[in-house]
């Protein structure tokens, strides 16, 4: 168990410990979870805080992830601030309930420690779990490192509970690479966390027995579509709230967040788009190539759902060629999920860049700065020859 003493200081923590510590600082009303690698340590450490009375949360050690999300739904509809964590098969087992949580507009916050989906069974990192949930109506924030995962969790609470949003949020970080690696991060003071997240003040609660509400009524064609339309508008509009919350976070704590991070992209000819920890690796390659005078850049989406397609087009439209690196395959014979989204976003660009796709890092396959350099070299070749030999491919494989 992580031992963090004092506040507002730089400490070395794993991603899981940082998330557990953030949850301790948030001290949610209810936490329902089930263990699964590599997110298990989050709930183990949080259970330690619970056992020692450092949180006064109701901890429900449920018998499955399906019940974890079901209990979160019940608790959230009862007016509680609710959190959970999971990975991979656990997220897959929750799948049915993810849609119920978002459809009922319940502001649940969940840490997702990204791990490959079976089969074959594999406990290591890729994004096939959260990508499978990308259309479940949850807001998705992806974190490059431990600090980002920690900071994103507090912001997620604010975003989810905002009256204009009322939509659950997943905070994703890479399994093992981030969850189990110790990195330095700056902690926020407990009191400042409380002040930033504020009190949860739900408009309705199942526990308000004087004002009974019916939640989750059977809804027929006369109303179902209107309710989904409201939900669709709310998640689309949450983009502005994400930015507002990020701005306030920066004012208070000095760390800057947006819809995405761009790295040496302004004058780049070629660009890589990649989520989470692989962005850090790619930055090393960018610096190395820049030192040789190559105009390369990087775009790392932070907010993936809703998808900020206009801002992404604006950021990428000047590039000649782009490679989208997907840590998940859509198994559609076309390309990965991030690729199809980025490529579609650029359709309205005045001069469309070439956009190719490489699937990488599945099931924890290593991704190095050399791999990234190889991708940039391939992009320069595309620019030089004007030819795309392979639109979508597995990185490093024929």
């Amino acid at each position, binding site marked *: 168990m992580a031992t963090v003493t004092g506040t507002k200081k730089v400490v070395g923590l794993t991603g899981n410990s940082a998330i557990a510590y953030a949850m301790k600082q948030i001290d949610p009303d209810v936490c329902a979870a089930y263990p699964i690698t590599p997110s298990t340590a989050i709930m183990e450490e949080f259970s330690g805080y619970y056992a020692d009375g450092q949180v006064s949360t109701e901890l429900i050690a449920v*018998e499955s992830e*399906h019940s974890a999300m079901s*209990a979160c739904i019940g608790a*959230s509809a009862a007016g*509680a601030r609710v959190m959970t964590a999971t990975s991979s098969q656990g997220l897959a087992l929750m799948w049915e*309930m993810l849609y119920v949580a978002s459809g009922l507009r319940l502001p649940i916050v969940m840490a997702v420690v990204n791990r490959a989906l079976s089969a074959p069974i594999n406990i290591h990192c890729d994004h096939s779990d959260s990508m499978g949930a990308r259309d479940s109506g949850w807001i998705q924030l992806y974190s490059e490192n431990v600090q980002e995962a920690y900071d994103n969790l507090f912001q997620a609470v604010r975003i989810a509970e905002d009256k204009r949003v009322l939509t659950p949020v997943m905070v994703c970080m890479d399994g093992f690479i981030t969850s189990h690696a110790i990195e330095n991060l700056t902690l926020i003071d407990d009191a400042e966390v409380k002040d930033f997240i504020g009190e949860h003040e739900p408009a309705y609660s*199942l*526990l308000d027995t004087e004002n009974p509400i019916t939640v989750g009524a059977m809804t027929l064609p006369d109303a179902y579509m209107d309710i989904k339309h409201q939900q669709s508008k709310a998640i689309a509009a949450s983009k502005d709230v994400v930015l507002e919350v990020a701005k306030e976070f920066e004012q208070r704590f000095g760390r800057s967040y947006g819809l995405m991070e761009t790295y040496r992209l302004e004058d780049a000819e070629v660009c890589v788009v990649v989520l989470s920890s692989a962005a850090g690796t790619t930055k090393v390659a960018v610096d190395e190539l820049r030192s040789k005078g190559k105009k390369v850049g990087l775009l790392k989406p932070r907010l993936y759902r809703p998808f900020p397609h206009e801002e992404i087009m604006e950021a990428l439209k000047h590039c000649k060629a782009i490679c989208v690196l997907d840590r998940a395959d859509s198994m559609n014979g076309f390309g990965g999920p991030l690729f199809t989204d980025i490529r579609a976003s650029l359709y309205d660009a005045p001069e469309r860049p070439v956009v190719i796709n490489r699937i990488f890092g599945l099931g924890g396959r290593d991704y190095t700065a050399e791999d990234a350099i190889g991708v940039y070299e391939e992009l320069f070749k595309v620019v030089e020859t004007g030819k795309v030999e392979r639109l979508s491919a597995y990185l490093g494989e024929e």
Partner: protein
Amino acid sequence: MATLKELSQIEERFTGGHRLCAGCGIPPIMRLILRAAGEHVVATTATGCLEVGTTIYPYTSWRIPWIHSAFENAAATMSGIESAYNVLKRRGKIAQDREIKFLAIGGDGGTYDIGFQALSGALERGHDMVYVCYDNGAYMNTGIQRSGATPFGSATTTSPAGSVHPGKQQRRKDLTRIVAAHRIPYAAQASPHNWRDLEKKAQKAFQIKGACFLNVISPCPLGWYTKPEDSIEDAKLAVETCYWPLYEIEDGVLKINYKPKEKKPIEEWLKKQGRFKHLFKEENRHIIEELQKEVDRDWETLLSLDGKRLF
């Protein structure tokens, strides 16, 4: 114990105008149980007849806070609600003197089968809730498919009365005993025809701290192929034939609440129901005999346990 007149004067919290079928056993069961629940109660219902029939948006039959989230998770959903109550009360967001009761409801499909894991987990964790199963013996909401509660020999749309396989070929689960084996403080079987017994059991279940369980037989004219006006009589026959004994297991001790003076043959219950019609053909008569043997054996076992400690 309230009289029927007193009960009728309690404000109705499950209103009419719902879309449940004529003769359905669920509404009288729900009305009785809600009357026993006390002033403040929150309910959740698994997907099924009760949920679909009572909440077509923007209408609701529920004058209490109510939620439906999915089919297999009524017990898990209620675990979250009850936990929210505990913490919000502890944190001063709910008045300290506000006692709220928690009621989770599922049909036999949502309880014996798909919701069984969530139920088992919630019972093991000991949430302070009452779980009520209305057992009509099949997936009636989706059109009468077999469930783990469907009686041996019964015809359903997924165990039809064929020439090779004449109805359901398997015995039903003894869910009440399985639930009791979780060592919960209270589990009971009841029937809507004996409203006094059902009411008493519901009151007991709401008063006892911890997870309590009521399994209530619920006649279904649509799936049983019976007359709507006979439903209460059909429930009574299930008890008089000892197909559905009324008993309770309180703090580990089993008590039979009703022993028929003269146990009626199972045929009397079967012959009124279209779902068993095929059993009366000569070639299927042996199924009735087997069913009778099973009922006899189960009843003898129950008698031998009457007044005994099970755990």
